[in-house]
């Protein structure tokens, strides 16, 4: 965020700040080191203390200790907080140095910091506390990242490409595991390094296969960390990312399988078959567990209308329970977490309040961000700690084999997959997919918990591969993407026309499929939607919010945003210009329509200058683009500042100013019109008033009142139309006919009483009663 906002001229200041940050860091690390050594010291003190409890009392009475150090009571939380603080300060520091963060991906920087810290600690204390224990990793650090990914998973591209993703995840990982494992075994047998202390030929085939299975899995954490910064198009992103999520099942099964085999010593065909069955159980079981908890969460959220404060807690708890329950049964915890998040999201979002929604979003992003940072730092620290068995042959051959296996796997699979795909994967795509197969901390943790005599050498090799992929591949992927001119994310403005067109096409294709009599993919999708609407939504969503179709939700959101933009940009001087008529809704209507008297409640159509329209259009365009950008990116660390949220303070100020000026603003003739709001989540999300109150304004007689709900917190994905459920509503404008006089500008418009309101371009009128409502409001989320 800082890097985006700081202009170039401030780089000098930035540098000094960065130095300050580094200084702070060094101090912190030293503090940490001394604290830890202090801990050792105090513990020894306590030992001596306890050694002679009785005698101590008999010695001379000490004076009352005014100041003392009692560290070990708080040692664990203290250290944890210290580490988290360190991690967060590091993140701050990186973003102060824009040049660095552009070249080097964050994950590399964090690992380097971890190395540094580990080095310092080792020097300070001669040993490094093992911080990356697998329990901490799997139980505390990994779930937030996966939940964040799963909750905000873009469902549509994911499901559309699910075949490809599964192929890569399952078949690709299997291929990688066997290829690497087998060939490493061959290398071990062949290579005889006289200078190394390790006899490679001792490593049996099974440990090699186990090693292969650990190292072959693409890591979601690393992929997320690197891919976020390169902004490739949605398809590639979802392919690699989806693969990294789904291959967890394969990894779990292979890992347990080979471990079992290693213990029992022999493999039979039955075992292989059981392995296959076990894979299905692990994968499907994980998904089912997740879906079950997801539905529970959705159902619970139906009843939370009176206790809004703990809504986010339910989301987090159910998801975590899903993860833990899956882990209990050795099912795939990651898949369960993803399934839980994805299943519960549409229903929960429909039920919960706007503030809870924001809370969930921010908490998830915060936790996952911190988790990721900690993981990388710990990785660096753990590298320093512990002995490494260097064997160049093993290490280099591992790295090479991993790369080769990945490339062959991707190319081969794509060849097969392209026969079934409509949108084929080009060579460039294949390259990115292959190159984006990064390994990360999951592999490390799995290696950590190995019980093998060759653990050390395996760990060293795993760390080498991780470092290689994260540093080399992570740093070079961005320039390569640019070099190859891979299609970047397309920033398309999503207009209401497109929305209509999409829906139309969907229905059209479903209809044609029905006529053909073929139960194709559209048919099933349609059936699922209908089932969803008819039964599931009724159960899981509170009240009668289950009926609004996506089109309307989309439209309302669009209007909200427009309205807010109008308020933001429209307060004040710009509107003093007169508005000769240009394009008006009326022009679009056939001229014979609507005689003046036939529509008494007709609202005034704004007459805009071309220039003003262009302005408004420009604002709309940029705003929608920004929103779209946010929509499609997984940008977890730098949540793009919501343009609407950012403008809130200004918004409030402007509104107040407008109220002061309102009687003078008779030239403001732009209005927003939409039917009356009636308390839906879409609208309530936009409310500034507290959630349980409806934002009702008494109709002012002389002023067109707009019930505009200003708090538009478009969460990136709520605009994305997972089924929002809202009743028919919107904002309302009731324009008493008398005031149409007030809005006539000099010039031509006098005769047009039948002007209809401009829908998309709008400006809420000045609002008389805002003051009182503001006092009641809770502070607007920023």
């Amino acid at each position, binding site marked *: 965020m800082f890097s985006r906002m700081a202009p170039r001229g401030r780089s000098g200041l930035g540098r000094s700040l960065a130095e300050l940050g580094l200084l702070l860091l060094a101090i912190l690390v030293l503090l940490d080191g001394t604290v830890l050594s202090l801990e050792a010291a105090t513990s020894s003190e306590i030992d001596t203390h306890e050694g002679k409890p009785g005698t101590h009392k008999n010695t001379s009475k000490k004076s009352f200790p005014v100041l003392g150090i009692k560290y070990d009571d708080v040692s664990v939380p203290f250290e944890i907080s210290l580490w988290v603080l360190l991690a967060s300060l590091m993140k701050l520091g990186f973003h102060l140095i824009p040049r660095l963060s552009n070249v080097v991906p964050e994950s590399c920087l964090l690992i380097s910091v971890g190395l540094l810290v580990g080095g310092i600690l080792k020097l300070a204390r001669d040993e490094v506390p093992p911080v990356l224990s697998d329990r901490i990793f799997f139980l505390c650090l990994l779930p937030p990242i996966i939940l964040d990914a799963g909750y905000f998973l873009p469902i549509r591209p994911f499901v559309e490409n699910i075949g490809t993703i599964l192929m890569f995840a399952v078949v690709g990982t299997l291929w990688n595991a066997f290829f690497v494992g087998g060939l490493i075994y061959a290398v071990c047998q062949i290579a005889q390094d006289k200078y190394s202390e390790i006899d490679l030929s001792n490593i049996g085939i099974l440990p090699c296969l186990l090693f292969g299975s650990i190292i072959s899995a693409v890591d979601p954490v690393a992929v997320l960390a690197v891919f976020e910064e390169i902004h490739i198009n949605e398809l590639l992103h979802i392919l690699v990312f989806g693969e990294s999520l789904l291959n967890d099942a394969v990894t779990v099964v292979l890992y347990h399988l080979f471990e079992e085999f290693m213990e029992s010593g022999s493999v039979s065909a039955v075992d292989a078959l059981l392995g296959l069955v076990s894979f299905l159980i692990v994968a499907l079981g994980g998904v089912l567990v997740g879906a079950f908890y997801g539905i529970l969460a959705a159902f619970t959220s139906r009843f939370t209308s009176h206790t809004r404060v703990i809504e986010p807690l339910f989301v987090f708890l159910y998801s975590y329970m899903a993860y833990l329950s899956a882990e209990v049964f050795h099912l795939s915890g990651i898949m369960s977490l993803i399934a839980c998040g994805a299943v519960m999201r549409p229903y929960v979002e429909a039920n919960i309040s706007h503030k809870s929604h924001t809370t969930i979003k921010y908490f998830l992003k915060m936790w996952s961000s911190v988790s990721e940072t900690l993981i990388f730092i710990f990785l660096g620290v753990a590298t320093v700690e512990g002995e490494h068995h260097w064997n160049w042959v093993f290490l280099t051959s591992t790295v090479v084999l991993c790369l080769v296996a990945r490339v062959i796997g991707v190319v081969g699979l794509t060849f097969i997959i392209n026969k079934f795909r409509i949108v084929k994967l080009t060579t460039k795509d294949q390259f990115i997919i292959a190159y984006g197969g990064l390994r990360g901390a999951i592999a490390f943790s799995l290696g950590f918990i190995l019980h093998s005599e060759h653990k050390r050498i395996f760990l060293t090799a795993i760390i080498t591969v991780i470092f290689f992929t994260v540093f080399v591949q992570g740093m070079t992927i961005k320039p390569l993407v640019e070099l190859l001119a891979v299609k970047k994310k397309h920033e398309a403005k999503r207009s209401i026309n497109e929305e209509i067109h*999409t829906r139309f096409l969907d229905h059209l*294709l479903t209809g044609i499929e029905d006529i053909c*009599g073929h139960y194709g993919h559209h048919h099933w999708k349609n059936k699922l939607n209908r089932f969803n609407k008819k039964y599931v939504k009724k159960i899981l969503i509170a009240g009668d919010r289950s009926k609004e179709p996506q089109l309307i939700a989309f439209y309302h959101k669009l209007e909200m945003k427009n309205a807010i933009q109008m308020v933001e940009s429209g307060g004040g001087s710009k509107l003093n210009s007169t508005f000769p008529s240009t394009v008006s809704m009326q022009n*679009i209507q056939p001229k014979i329509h609507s005689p003046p008297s036939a529509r008494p409640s007709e609202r005034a159509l704004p007459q805009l200058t071309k220039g003003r329209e262009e302005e408004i259009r420009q604002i709309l365009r940029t705003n929608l683009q920004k929103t779209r950008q946010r929509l499609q990116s997984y940008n977890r660390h730098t949540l793009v500042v919501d343009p609407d949220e950012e403008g809130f303070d200004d918004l409030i100020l402007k509104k107040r100013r407008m109220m002061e000026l309102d009687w003078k603003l008779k030239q403001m003739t732009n209005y927003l019109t939409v039917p009356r709001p009636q308390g839906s989540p879409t609208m309530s999300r936009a409310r500034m008033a507290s959630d349980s109150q409806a934002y009702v304004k008494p109709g002012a007689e002389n002023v067109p009142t707009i019930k505009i709900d200003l708090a538009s917190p478009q969460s990136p994905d709520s605009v994305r139309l997972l089924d929002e459920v809202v009743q*028919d509503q919107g904002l309302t404008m009731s324009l008493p006919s008398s005031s149409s006089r007030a809005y006539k500008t000099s010039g031509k418009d006098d005769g047009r009483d039948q002007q209809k309101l401009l829908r998309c371009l709008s400006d809420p009128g000045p609002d008389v009663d805002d003051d009182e409502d503001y006092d009641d409001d809770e502070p607007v989320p920023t």
Partner: protein
Amino acid sequence: MGALKSTPAPTEHYDLSEKTGFSLRQIRVLHKRFKQLSEGDDVLRREDFLGISSLKYNPIRKEIIEAFFNRRNFSPSCEGRANEIDFEEFLVVMSHFKPPCSKMTDEQRKSIRREKLKFIFNMHDSDGDGLITLEDYRHVVEELLSRSGALGKETSRAIADAAMFEVARTVGHRDPDEFYEGITFEHFLKVRSQSALCFKKEEKWLIRCLMCGKGSRHMFLK
């Protein structure tokens, strides 16, 4: 139940294959379906379509059915509506949903795309005058939203107006006072070509059964 008779294809099928680009197998499959829908007749009528049960839930079923009977879809020069269609016309309409074959020149692609968009345009334009007027568009939006129950006409009207306005904005460099009749096909092309979504959908716009040309058991489930 699903077995296709292995009789040699009648000569018409060869001609049709030439004309529409379907393979013989696909034509045979579609012919079977045609016969089934028309209950043995040689022509299809509107009522036959209404008999398809799964079509009931489709909000735009009327438009879809009309599209089959719209003469403009048979060939560029025809006008008006038919009341019954024969197999050839059925095939012509279906051919709009054929997947593009991989070896096509750019121009061919373009013209095929144009045809597909013309098809959609005709579906929107219910009165057949070559323009999508505001009324037409409103009608379309209402239909789309008609399955959602309990909706005021106001909202769908609002949406249609907004959409129409947007098109007017994007397309027009017009005199401010000029009257905007409706969207012509050229405007429609222009607007659609600006949307990136269009391309993605274009590529997906095919029916898989037509792709593989196999008849499946499901073909005979109504």
